[in-house]
C-alpha cells in the first residue's frame, strides 16, 4: 500500500504544481486588473471574488461576469485564465488516468491487493505454485472441498483465466516468479494459517527452489512437490519434503496394479477420484505382450513396472542414443505402420503411446488399432486442452499427468487416512479386494463414491462423547444408521479405523468406538452429512441407540421421568 501511495504522489507532483500555479496566476491577475462597478466607479476585485470566479472558470461552469460586468482588460485576462486553468486541469486528470493504465502501476496495484487478500485470510490455506493443468485442477478440487488456496504463476493469462472462473471460495492469485523468496513471503508462506506449499510448476529446478525456500522460511510447513526426474526427487527428499509426486511413476505403479489386481486398482481409483467425474466402466488390461512407444521418462517408468510384473514389452523409440534405450529397441516414431509391423503389433495385446507429443500419441493409437483391432490402448495426454480429441479417440486408458498429480494431492490433503488405508489394503489379496468392491458397488448409484473421515472428539462428535459419559457404547453400525429412519442403513462402508497405535481394516458394524478414534468411510456422495448429524445431535444418536425419541426440554424430560417412575 505504501508503494502505491508513493508512486501516485510522485507521479502527480508536476500536474498538481501546474494546477496550483495556474490558479495562483489567474487569481492574482484578476485582483490586480482595475475594473468598474455598476455606478461607473473604479473598482478592484478582491481575492474572495477572484478565487470564486477562477474556480467556476477552471471547472468550465462559468456563470458570467460577476459581481459587475468586466472591463476589456479584465476580459482579456479572463481568456488567459480560462485556457491556463482548463489546460492545467486536463493535464492533471490526464496524468491520473495515464497512471492508472500504466502497466507498472497496475502491477503494483494487483500486488498490493494480493498481499492484502493474503493477510485477510483467517482460515487454513495452501499455497499452490504453478497453475498448469495439475495446479488448475487442484485449485478447483480444493475449492470444491471449501479449502482455501493462494496461487502464484508466472503467466498472466493463466491467472486471468482462473479469475474469470466461478469458484466456491475466493482464490487470491499473483503473477510472479514463485522461486523468489520475496514472492513466497508475500503469498503468506510464513503466515500461521499457511498449512502447506504445493510446488507444481513445469520445471523441476523451480519446484526444487520453492521447496527448499519454503522449508527454510518455515520448517514445520508441509511441502508437496511435483518432480519428473529421480535426481530432483532424491534432492527434494534430502531436506524433508513431505510428499514428492512423480506423475510417470505414479501412473506406472497404478498401471501395474491394474494388470495385477483389477479390483484393488478400482478401490484405489475410487478413493482418489475427482468428485464430479462419472463412474467409468472398467476393463482389466490383458497380460500379454505390450508395445511401448516412446522411451522417455514415462516409457522408462512403465517399462520398469511392467517387467517387474513379468510382462513382456517391445519398445519403439525415435531417438535411441539420447534416451539410452536398451538392446532390441525398434527405431522409429511409431506413427507409421512399418515401425508397428516391425514391433509385431498384430500379435501384441496392448499399445502404450507415451511420447511427449499429443498428436503423435493419437496418431500411434489410430494406426495401431487399424492394424490390430483387439489392442488395448493406453495414451498419454500431455495437455488438458486436448480433452475432446482424446475422448473422441476412444482410448481404454488415458494417462494425464495433471489429473494424476491433482488426484494424489487432493487425496493427501482431504483424507489423510487414505494413505494408511491404501497401504494396509495393498497387503491384502485380490479376493479381499473383490469382496470390498462388491460391497461398495452395492451402495452406489451412477457416480463414483466419496470418502470421508470422522474423528471422535469434542469438535466433530460432541454427541458421542456425551453418550460415553453416560456409560453407553456407540458402535460404527449406529453411525451408519439413517437418523430419520432406524430401519434404513446409510449407503456407506467403513473402510479403516485408526486408534492410538491400533489399526483395524474394514471394521464391522459392531465395532465399538472410543474417544480419539478416526474412521474412514466410503459411500454414496453426501452421505457424510447425515452421519455428522448423528455425531452432533445427542437426541438423534439416542434415538438410534435406544429407539426412543427422548424429550428434549427440561419440563418434558421431567414429566417423562415422573411417568416412568410411576
Amino acid at each position, binding site marked *: 500500500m505504501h508503494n502505491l501511495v*508513493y*508512486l501516485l*504522489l*510522485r*507521479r*502527480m*507532483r508536476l500536474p*498538481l*504544481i501546474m494546477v*496550483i*500555479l495556474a490558479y*495562483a496566476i489567474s*487569481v*492574482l491577475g484578476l*485582483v490586480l486588473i482595475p475594473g468598474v462597478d455598476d455606478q461607473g466607479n473604479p473598482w478592484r476585485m*478582491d*481575492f*474572495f471574488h477572484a478565487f470564486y470566479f477562477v474556480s467556476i472558470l477552471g471547472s468550465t461552469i462559468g456563470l458570467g461576469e460577476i459581481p459587475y460586468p468586466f472591463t476589456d482588460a479584465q476580459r482579456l485576462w479572463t481568456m488567459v485564465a480560462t485556457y491556463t486553468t482548463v489546460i492545467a486541469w486536463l493535464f492533471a486528470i490526464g496524468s491520473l488516468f495515464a497512471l492508472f493504465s500504466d502497466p507498472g502501476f497496475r502491477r503494483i496495484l494487483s500486488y498490493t491487493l494480493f498481499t492484502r487478500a493474503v493477510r485477510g485470510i483467517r482460515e487454513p490455506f495452501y499455497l499452490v505454485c504453478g497453475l498448469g493443468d495439475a495446479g488448475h485442477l487442484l485449485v478447483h478440487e480444493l475449492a470444491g472441498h471449501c479449502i482455501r488456496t493462494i496461487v502464484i504463476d508466472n503467466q498472466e493469462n493463466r491467472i486471468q483465466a482462473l479469475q474469470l472462473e466461478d469458484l466456491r471460495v475466493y482464490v487470491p492469485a499473483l503473477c510472479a516468479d514463485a522461486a523468489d523468496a520475496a514472492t513466497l513471503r508475500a503469498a503468506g508462506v510464513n503466515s500461521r494459517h499457511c498449512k502447506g506449499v504445493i510446488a507444481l510448476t513445469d520445471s523441476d529446478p523451480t519446484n526444487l527452489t520453492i521447496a527448499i525456500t519454503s522449508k527454510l522460511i518455515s520448517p514445520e510447513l508441509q511441502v508437496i512437490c511435483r518432480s519428473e526426474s529421480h535426481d530432483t526427487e532424491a534432492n527434494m527428499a534430502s531436506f524433508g519434503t513431505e510428499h514428492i509426486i512423480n506423475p510417470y511413476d505414479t501412473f506406472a505403479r497404478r498401471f501395474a496394479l491394474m494388470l495385477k489386481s483389477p479390483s484393488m486398482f478400482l478401490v484405489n481409483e475410487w478413493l482418489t477420484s475427482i468428485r464430479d467425474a462419472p463412474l467409468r466402466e472398467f476393463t482389466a488390461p490383458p497380460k500379454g505382450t505390450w508395445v511401448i512407444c516412446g522411451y522417455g521418462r514415462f516409457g522408462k517408468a512403465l517399462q520398469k513396472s511392467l517387467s517387474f510384473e513379468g510382462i513382456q514389452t517391445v519398445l519403439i523409440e525415435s531417438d535411441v542414443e539420447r534416451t539410452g534405450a536398451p538392446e532390441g529397441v525398434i527405431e522409429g516414431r511409431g506413427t507409421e505402420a512399418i515401425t508397428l509391423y516391425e514391433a509385431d503389433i498384430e500379435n501384441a495385446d496392448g499399445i502404450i503411446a507415451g511420447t511427449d507429443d499429443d498428436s503423435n500419441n493419437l496418431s500411434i493409437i489410430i494406426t495401431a488399432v487399424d492394424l490390430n483391432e483387439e489392442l488395448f490402448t493406453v495414451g498419454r495426454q500431455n495437455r488438458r486442452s486436448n480433452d475432446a480429441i482424446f475422448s473422441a479417440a476412444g482410448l481404454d486408458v488415458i494417462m494425464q499427468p495433471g489429473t494424476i498429480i491433482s488426484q494424489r494431492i487432493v487425496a493427501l490433503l482431504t483424507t489423510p487416512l487414505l494413505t494408511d488405508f491404501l497401504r494396509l489394503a495393498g497387503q491384502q489379496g485380490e479376493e479381499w479386494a473383490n469382496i470390498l468392491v462388491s460391497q461398495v458397488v452395492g451402495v452406489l448409484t451412477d457416480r463414483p463414491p466419496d470418502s470421508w473421515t470422522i474423528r471422535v472428539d469434542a469438535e466433530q462428535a460432541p454427541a458421542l462423547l456425551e453418550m460415553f459419559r453416560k456409560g453407553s457404547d456407540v458402535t460404527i453400525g449406529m453411525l451408519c444408521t439413517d437418523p430419520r429412519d432406524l430401519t434404513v442403513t446409510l449407503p456407506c462402508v467403513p473402510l479403516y479405523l485408526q486408534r492410538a497405535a491400533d489399526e483395524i481394516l474394514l471394521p464391522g458394524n459392531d465395532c465399538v468406538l472410543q474417544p480419539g478414534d478416526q474412521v474412514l468411510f466410503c459411500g454414496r456422495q453426501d452421505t457424510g452429512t447425515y452421519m455428522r448429524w448423528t455425531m452432533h445431535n445427542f437426541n438423534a444418536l439416542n434415538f438410534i441407540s435406544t429407539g426412543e425419541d427422548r424429550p428434549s426440554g427440561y419440563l418434558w424430560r421431567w414429566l417423562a421421568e415422573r411417568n416412568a417412575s410411576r
Partner: protein
Amino acid sequence: MNLEKVVFAFFIVLALTLNFGFFLGSLDDPNHHNVYELYAALVVSLIATVMKFGDRAHIGAVLLATSLVADLQLIAAVIIWGVTVYGMETGLTPPIMASIVSLSGGALLANIISVVILVTETVMFRR
C-alpha cells in the same frame, strides 16, 4: 549543484519569508498586514507541499508533515478572513485580525521547523 534542491529550498525559504512578512506588525491592526502577502504565502506553501510528495526518506516525510501543518494554518486564516469580510460582513475588527495573524504565526513556526530540517539535512550531506 542540483537544480531540484535549489528549487525545493527556494520554495521552503520563500514560504517562510512571505509568511514572516505578513506576520510582522501589530497583531490586531489590519493596516500592518497585507492581503497580497497572505495570498502569496498560501500559494507558495501549497507548492512547497506538493514538491515533497513522493519523497520516501524519513526527513522527506517530516518535511511533508510540517508543510501540511503550515498549509492548514494558512487556509484556516484565509477562511476566517473571507468569512468575516464577505460572509458575515463584520469587517476586519481587531479581534478577528488578531486571530488571523496568530494563525499565520502558527504557520510561521511550522515554516521555521521546515527550514531548520532543511538546513540540518544540508549540513549533514556536506559532511
